[in-house]
């Protein structure tokens, strides 16, 4: 297999999520799954076959689903509450706030198929507000794995040290951007590539795209640092401050609304320094038109060439 062939391989993170969840469920009987009639879309068919009593399907009832998750955690279990991102976060936002984050119940909320993964199904089914909404909740970790390896690690860590967590589990197929042994440290960005001219911070689906943008910039002699923001909360303030001190511009890229997500978090951190480089936040600021996930990423300028162009402009001042 050539390097080009390897680069073309992409994976649905839900597969890694389901496999890892099943593996930890086999060794820790406290692990349970909760869902809203999403056994199939959350890839829980295998879990149900092996642990029918530990798969709690509450039906199409997201408020109850999150409350039930909190109660299971209160009873000493480790619940992974799985539902399509838009409904998990939007429909039950008050439950996420009061029952999980504020109550400090150790529930792992798994937002499946986030971003614009549901493409043509439209903005009702897009989960692009989740990062803004949930970043407003103190005490809630937000984890956005960039590939299948990080997805596995995120599931393992959540079970090993359960705490109130939102885990964004992508459906849009992505290439590997980490090795299975790369660390996934709570509250830390992962340095995906080093560079001293501009910093590109991507999260989830956008990590591979920012890496590809960095390769395009390198062809122009621009060295880009690429940070993989696998944790949005807690935020890696240290890495952002270092980027602000050591590079001349920061470009963030996320498959989410920019009003309160990663870009906003980075911009606030840089602004607090009182001086620093320009920050450009790439993401969504309006409801998406009809189109596939790929088309919509292109529409909103979330492709490698578009990210590279934004970096060049930012550097040009």
């Amino acid at each position: 297999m050539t390097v080009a062939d390897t680069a073309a391989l992409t994976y649905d993170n839900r597969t890694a999520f389901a496999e890892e969840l099943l593996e930890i469920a086999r060794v820790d009987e406290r692990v349970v799954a909760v869902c809203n009639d999403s056994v199939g879309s959350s890839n829980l068919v295998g879990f149900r076959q092996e642990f029918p009593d530990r798969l709690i399907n509450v039906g199409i009832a997201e408020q109850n689903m999150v409350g039930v998750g909190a109660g299971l955690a209160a009873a000493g279990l480790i619940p992974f509450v799985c539902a399509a991102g838009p409904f998990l976060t939007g429909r039950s936002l008050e439950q996420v706030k009061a029952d999980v984050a504020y109550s400090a119940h150790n529930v792992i909320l798994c937002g499946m198929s986030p971003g614009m993964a549901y493409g043509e199904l439209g903005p009702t089914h897009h989960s692009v507000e989740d990062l803004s909404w949930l970043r407003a909740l103190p005490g809630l970790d937000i984890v956005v794995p960039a590939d299948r390896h990080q997805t596995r690690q995120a599931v393992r860590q959540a079970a090993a040290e359960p705490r109130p967590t939102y885990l964004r589990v992508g459906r849009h197929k992505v290439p590997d951007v980490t090795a299975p042994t790369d660390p996934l440290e709570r509250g830390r960005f992962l340095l995906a590539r080093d560079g001293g001219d501009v910093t590109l911070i991507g999260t989830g689906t956008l990590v591979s795209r920012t890496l590809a943008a960095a390769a395009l910039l390198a062809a122009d002699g621009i060295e880009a640092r690429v940070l993989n923001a696998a944790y949005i909360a807690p935020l890696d303030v240290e890495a952002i401050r270092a980027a602000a001190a050591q590079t001349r511009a920061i470009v963030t890229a996320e498959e989410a609304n920019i009003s309160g997500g990663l870009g906003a978090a980075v911009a606030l951190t840089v602004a607090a320094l009182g001086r620093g480089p320009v920050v450009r936040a790439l993401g969504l600021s309006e409801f998406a038109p009809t189109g596939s996930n790929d088309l919509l990423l292109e529409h909103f300028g979330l492709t490698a060439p578009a990210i590279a162009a934004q970096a060049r402009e930012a550097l040009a001042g």
Partner: protein
Amino acid sequence: MMTAHAPQVRAWRETRTAVETASPTEQAALLAEQSRLIRRSVLAMIGRAKAGHIGGDFSVTDILATLYFGVLRIDPARPDAPVRDRFIMSKGHCAASLYSVLAYSGYFDPAELDTFMGPYSALNGHPNRTKVPGVETNTGPLGHGLPVAVGEALGTRLRGHDSRVFVVCGDGELQEGSNWEALMSAAHYRLANLTLVIDRNRLQQGARTEETNALDPLEDKLAAFGWEVREADGHDHAALLGAFAPGAGPRPVAVIANTIKGKGVTFIEDRVEWHHKVPTPEQIDLALKELA
């Protein structure tokens, strides 16, 4: 986090033992005395804080006294014991009565009740489990307690624990859709270890429930959702003790506790304006005389 108050835990244990060994008449008298103390405490707390929800506190008082001094298998000295009965106050705005019964059970020093809603007090206007031992989950927005109780009932059963889960909802609170999602789930999962107590005082913040968004026929609705439904006078401790007995199974049990909002003080009883009106010092004196 506050810690258990040993002298009060001892006092609670003595009362519990007395209730368990007493004749039915004596049981009711012992529980009624705890209710009287809770109502006096609530009055003092709300008077001092100049805020609170006295009407709902008084309608739920006898339910709380019966549960904590006659039913729940708990150890206030070990609030996190893995195997324990669990109680969730879904109508979190009635925190003053909950805090009073928790303090009198010894979960924390009753002297803390004086700080109710004061600056930096653990005793917020709505209960916070990270600050107050004995609180199972944070409530305040309505319609949250029952889903969490369903999860706890499922979870304790999955763990093989012999635990019962009780949750008190206000009747107006049943207008929240999340409760009906949870009612369906509880029946579907045959949660015989779950008891929902509905504080049926027929008043909500703005008006009577039946004038706002009618709940009746409530018994029929709950039965149609697959619950074993019981009705009881929510101020009759003996009746409540009976109603809180385990169900025959496999259905969850709903107790419609018919109550009077503001019960115990004549000028507060069944008056909509006393949802969260604060009594004047003169009114507190009058009320304390009625609760002497």
